[in-house]
């Protein structure tokens, strides 16, 4: 047996469209499920509320009220895809928000204040990233420290809320009408962040390294990818997004409030998981997280329409999260058994 390539070509038998699709995009299925759920929710609410639900006003509010959540979800997606988690985002958002409001009310110009708070958010993210990457601290604990830190700092800056009077920042909440729909600059920012995040994840080596780390960090390392720098950077990005969320929230609501965002990180995580990102890492899409945020927002809107107590919100989100997790677990278990 001295011939060269004598092995038969590995032919892929003619496969159905479905088989080809599944082999290429199996990880999109959870996201499709999220979209389906969103459609169902919207259609259901519309039917139930006799055509009062899907109005330009409601839909516009859906995007804008959840602007901060959307921004944080992008950063969280980056972190979770690497297999980590960031519990600090809600507190960082509050911290940067109150810091911004306080600086503005002390006469600092927006052109200075805004970069400062963004850097602040990024720095807290950097702290977490360093603990995770260089000190081998579990992301849960490291980001917990970040949570404590940011929350404490928020109250250190100011114990109570501060209104924003700065025109430049308030401009961010001006409504631009397109027919009966409206959007604000904060909404545009949120959408831009989503677009940028999706692009980076899909089309840059940095983004692909993130997926590789989540898939198998040992392999990623052996394949010569810069695991350390990437893992550090995702936490910085998450912190940056949280800082940006602080800007968006403060501008949109017109005030900074140190009590903001308590428990928000859990809502962000829930939205990201619902949107199809696996908590174990390696799979997920920024656009999916966006869908997850809309699902979250829709549920919230439905609840307020129904006049039900807001506590239902937590229960439903918790329940949905559980459902998704169990399904994810079943899928993973089945895949393992098939091997």
């Amino acid at each position, binding site marked *: 047996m001295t011939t*060269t390539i004598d*092995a038969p070509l590995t032919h892929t038998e003619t496969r159905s469209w479905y088989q080809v699709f599944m082999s290429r995009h199996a990880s999109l299925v959870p996201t499709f499920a999220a979209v389906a759920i969103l459609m169902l929710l919207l259609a259901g609410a519309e039917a139930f509320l006799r055509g009062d639900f899907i109005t330009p006003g409601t839909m516009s509010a859906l995007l804008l009220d959840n602007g901060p959540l959307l921004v944080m979800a992008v950063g969280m997606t980056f972190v979770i895809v690497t297999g980590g988690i960031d519990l600090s985002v809600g507190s960082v958002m509050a911290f940067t928000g109150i810091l911004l409001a306080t600086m503005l009310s002390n006469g600092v110009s927006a052109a200075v204040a805004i970069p400062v708070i963004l850097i602040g958010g990024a720095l807290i993210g950097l702290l977490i990233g360093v603990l995770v990457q260089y000190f081998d601290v579990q992301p849960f604990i490291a980001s917990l420290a970040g949570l404590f830190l940011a929350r404490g700092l928020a109250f250190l800056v100011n114990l109570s809320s501060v209104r924003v009077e700065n025109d430049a920042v308030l401009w961010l909440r001006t409504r631009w009408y397109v027919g009966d729909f409206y959007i604000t600059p904060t909404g545009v920012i949120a959408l831009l962040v989503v677009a940028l995040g999706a692009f980076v994840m899909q089309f*840059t080596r940095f983004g692909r390294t993130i997926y590789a780390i989540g*898939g198998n960090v040992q392999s990623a390392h052996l394949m010569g*990818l810069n695991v350390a720098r990437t893992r550090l950077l995702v936490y910085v990005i998450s912190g940056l997004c949280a800082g940006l969320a602080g800007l968006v929230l403060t501008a949109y609501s017109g005030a900074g409030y140190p009590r903001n965002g308590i428990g928000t990180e859990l809502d962000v995580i829930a939205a990201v998981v619902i949107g199809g990102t696996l908590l174990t890492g390696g799979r997920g899409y920024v656009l999916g997280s966006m869908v997850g945020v809309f699902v979250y927002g829709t549920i919230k809107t439905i609840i307020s329409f129904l006049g039900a107590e807001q506590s239902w919100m937590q229960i439903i989100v918790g329940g949905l999260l559980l459902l998704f997790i169990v399904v994810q677990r079943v899928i993973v278990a089945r895949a393992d058994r098939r091997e």
Partner: protein
Amino acid sequence: MHTDTAVQPIVDMTGITIRFPGVLALNNVDFSLRPGEVHALMGENGAGKSTLIKALTGVYSIDAGTIFVGGRHEAFATTADAQRAGISTVYQEVNLCPNLSVGENVMLGHEPRTGGRIDWKAAHARASEHLAALGVDVDPRAELSSHSIAIQQLVAIARAMVLDAKVLILDEPTSSLDRSEVERLFGVIRGVKATGVAVLFVSHFLDQVYEISDRITVLRNGNLIGDYPTAELPREQLVSKMIGRELEDLAALARTAERTIDRDSAPVLKAEGLGKRGIVEPADIDVYEGEVVGIAGLLGSGRTELVRLLYGADRADSGTVSVHGALAKIHAPRHAIDHRIAFSSEDRRGEGIVADLTVAENIVLGIQARQGWARRVRPSVHDAVVAEYMEALDVRPANPAMVAGNLSGGNQQKVLLARWLATAPELIILDEPTRGIDVGAKADIQRKVAELAEQGLGVVFISSELEEVLRIAQRVVVMRDRRRIGEFVSQDIDLDGLIDYIANAERGNVA
């Protein structure tokens, strides 16, 4: 001894020495690879193969010696350095990212970009080209995990080609492949070889080594035994060199094998057709009361896999197990324990000793687990058992409060043995109980096993040291390449015969 030195080697390692705390992993080893050859690296466990490869791939740094790649002196500080020097490795676990597409895995880190933005169309096209060059035609956009291990390996090889490898190291590539997949892999290897790449093939499968390799290097206990053209090295010689005729103080131990075993009553344990797809072919094995059944074979022959099925540590897909003649359901260790079967794993640190618990707690763990959590083993019983076994097996240091993780390998093995013996089993499975243990401890353990068998305990005994197996066992089951190939009464065979059988016996009726 180097034979044909006409061709300039692509890799030239001389005098490689690597030391770990307490052990000399490689002792002045020379190794060379020539372009366009398939070179097999052979040796038993602890021989140093893995260490040598890790030195070449930049995982370990060397204490002495030099490495030349392509004529250049190299001192690898990181794995990336080795990769840059043209050394690519495909590991047994196929170190790729299962969540990414085939094409992406091939091109990861080298994707074609237009100004920072990855051009996926070009990337997948490029990947297809590389795969086609190996004769592989798979959809580059499909997720890697949707393909079999066999295909994943080929993808890994394609990636190595992208990285312009001069040397391709294949570490146990065929462990999870079936016959046709192995054929395909070999075809690819020959193709790669034809392009001038040197292929380093590490495998335990003798038949495959003889099929694909041009030269063989044998290591044993960290030393170079020699390198030989495959065509000039008969199998028995290879096996002989790998196993070695070691000086055994234990040779003085008389063969305890000559004992009469009562085979009229049902065997303590009988397995028929026990197997697990992709892990071990269906095999039969039975053990009578007071008998020691040895399982002999080279590393990778499936011995451990088979006994794990017997114990329920892994779940079998086929076959039945009977205990004392009655069909038994053994799907988990608990079931085996209920049938009074004990199992001492070969990975005593990972699967045996609970490192942070004390010696006493480890010894009592078996009894305690069986008793349940509510009833604590009474202190009087506890102390008595611990004292008895620590003395019987001569555990050193004789301190029951010592943390088990701090004991030497030999003593940890004794503690593990004590744990199982304390549960008064009827059958005990010992997987490599004497590996990596000093001679004194080895003798203690072998003596104990023989004693216990005389008292009626059934024993299944796995060891890579064939003399040991022949000395202690009444019958020897032989395995090779994940299947059982035969069985002997140990009195009827000697070491040479056994080695010859392992090397050359025809496979059964399995293709």
